[in-house]
């Protein structure tokens, strides 16, 4: 076990450091984070549209007219469902920042390139027709959301790479000295912007030549499908979660390190559910961002809310008692660094066992409860990850009591798994304290 922990420390530190210093992953993560406040704002209107109060819909219709719900979704459509558009700008911006080049210009170039990759037409089935026709003059909203996220990521990174390359090679339009600097500066973006736009233009022409409707279709097939399978399956989710837990066991912020790769997949599932939820259709996905944030990370990664409760009410050692008082508050808001570093769980062979076991059991139990229809699936409503348990489960499922109950059940499961290990640890601490009668931590 100590060998294993030594391995974690010696291998993961440099790995995590490299990953964090990796420009593209960092830009990807920070660029997508830019969309998060908008996604949550959009979710507020979603919650207002589907308040689970009997007679609410009728009441709203009588006050605001039949179209009340469609109107209430205007803000959701313009915030939550624009995550692709925001990411196309944000990722390029964040990457340019890391290169130390003009970030806002990079963002604008990427934004236009992203739009260029998207055909400006939408399918429409006229009355009486059997086949949909393409109607021009419209930006397809679907591709501005999570459906366009992968293309947004690729173009955001690619266009900024080109921008950086050309700037560093100094291929810019040189103006005579008599031209005011501000004027010549305005031409700096011209060459790289022109090259990026031309490349995307050519790619689109080639793809259309082969009869494929858009770059989005190709990327979806090559990237979206396989990654979706990984993030959308039970095994894939457990593997991904184990990686996060392993990093946390070494005391590293696993969620933060792995999130760059997985958040697009889970965000995509979130938006798919949101669209189905609004249409009153069967929710297609179980593994969304909220599945993990709300149902698994209760009290923080490793579902440590249960452990915090054990410490608060059953600890005998001074140290665990003190930590219980300290960690219950943050734990209620899903923050558990005091527990992870104070107990500690980090590098602690005894407590790492339930720290791994609990979330895996919770993933399996929650997954099957949702799959069998005992518990409502996450409705694609994004709530802040700091939302306390019970409230979070209720809101994230679109106001279903079963969501709140599921969270309560998960807390009890976590309590039960942590209990024997906590007892042993608490006893060890008690013995230590009995010897030296001191509550000081050294």
């Amino acid at each position, binding site marked *: 076990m100590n060998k294993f922990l030594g391995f974690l420390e010696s291998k993961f530190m440099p790995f995590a450091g490299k990953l964090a210093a990796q420009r593209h992953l960092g830009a990807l993560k920070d660029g997508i984070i830019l969309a998060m406040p908008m996604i949550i704002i959009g979710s507020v209107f979603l919650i207002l549209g589907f308040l689970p109060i009997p007679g609410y819909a009728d009441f709203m219709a009588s006050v605001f007219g039949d179209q009340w719900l469609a109107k209430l979704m205007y803000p959701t459509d313009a915030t939550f469902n624009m995550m692709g558009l925001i990411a196309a700008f944000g990722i390029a911006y964040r990457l340019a920042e890391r290169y130390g080049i003009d970030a806002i210009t990079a963002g604008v170039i990427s934004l236009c390139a992203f739009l260029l990759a998207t055909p400006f037409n939408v399918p429409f089935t006229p009355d009486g027709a059997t086949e949909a026709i393409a109607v021009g003059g419209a930006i397809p909203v679907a591709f501005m959301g999570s459906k366009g996220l992968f293309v947004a990521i690729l173009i955001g990174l690619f266009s900024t790479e080109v921008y950086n390359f050309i700037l560093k090679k100094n291929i810019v339009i040189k103006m005579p000295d008599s031209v005011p600097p501000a004027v010549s500066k305005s031409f700096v973006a011209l060459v790289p912007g022109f090259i990026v736009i031309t490349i995307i233009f050519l790619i689109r022409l080639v793809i259309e030549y082969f009869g494929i409707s858009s770059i989005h279709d190709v990327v979806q097939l090559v990237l979206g499908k396989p990654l979706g399978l990984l993030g959308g399956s039970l095994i894939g989710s457990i593997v991904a979660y184990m990686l996060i837990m392993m990093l946390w066991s070494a005391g590293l912020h696993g969620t933060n390190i792995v999130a760059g790769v997985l958040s697009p997949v889970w965000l995509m599932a979130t938006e798919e559910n949101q669209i189905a939820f609004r249409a009153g259709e069967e929710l297609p996905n179980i593994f969304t961002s909220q599945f993990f944030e709300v149902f698994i990370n209760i009290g923080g990664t490793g579902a440590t809310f249960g452990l915090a409760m054990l410490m608060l009410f059953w600890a005998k050692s001074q140290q665990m008692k003190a930590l219980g008082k300290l960690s219950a508050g943050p734990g209620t808001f899903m923050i558990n660094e005091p*527990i992870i570093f104070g107990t500690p769980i980090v590098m602690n062979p005894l407590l790492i066992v339930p720290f791994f076991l609990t979330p895996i059991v919770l993933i399996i139990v929650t997954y099957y409860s949702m799959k069998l229809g005992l518990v409502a699936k996450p409705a694609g409503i994004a709530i802040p990850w700091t939302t306390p348990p019970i409230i979070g489960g209720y809101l994230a499922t679109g106001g279903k009591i079963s969501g709140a109950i599921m969270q309560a059940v998960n807390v009890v499961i976590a309590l039960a798994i942590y209990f024997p290990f906590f007892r042993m640890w608490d006893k060890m601490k008690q013995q230590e304290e009995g010897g030296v009668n001191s509550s000081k*931590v050294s």
Partner: protein
Amino acid sequence: MMNILLCCAAGMSTSLLVTKMEAAAKDQGLDSKIWAVSADQVKANIDQADVLLLGPQVRYLLPQMQQLGKEKNIPVDSINPIHYGMCNGAEVLKTAVALKNK
């Protein structure tokens, strides 16, 4: 006046420590400004700081941040995990003062 910048993933859990450190500084009569930010906000805040301390969960950023600190001539270190976990404001304050005077 001592300016201490703390950093973690989201700036949330380190903000717990800020309150404890402020209390400890007050007890010792130390005039200080202590604040917590997320990792990507460090660049925008480091110029106002005398020392930068990282939460142990982002200590993989230490080489990167030390590089930044070197450029700005600001000492950087990570916080002892146990002090961090127990929110031991007095000990972390001691670390910060020692780091500045080094």
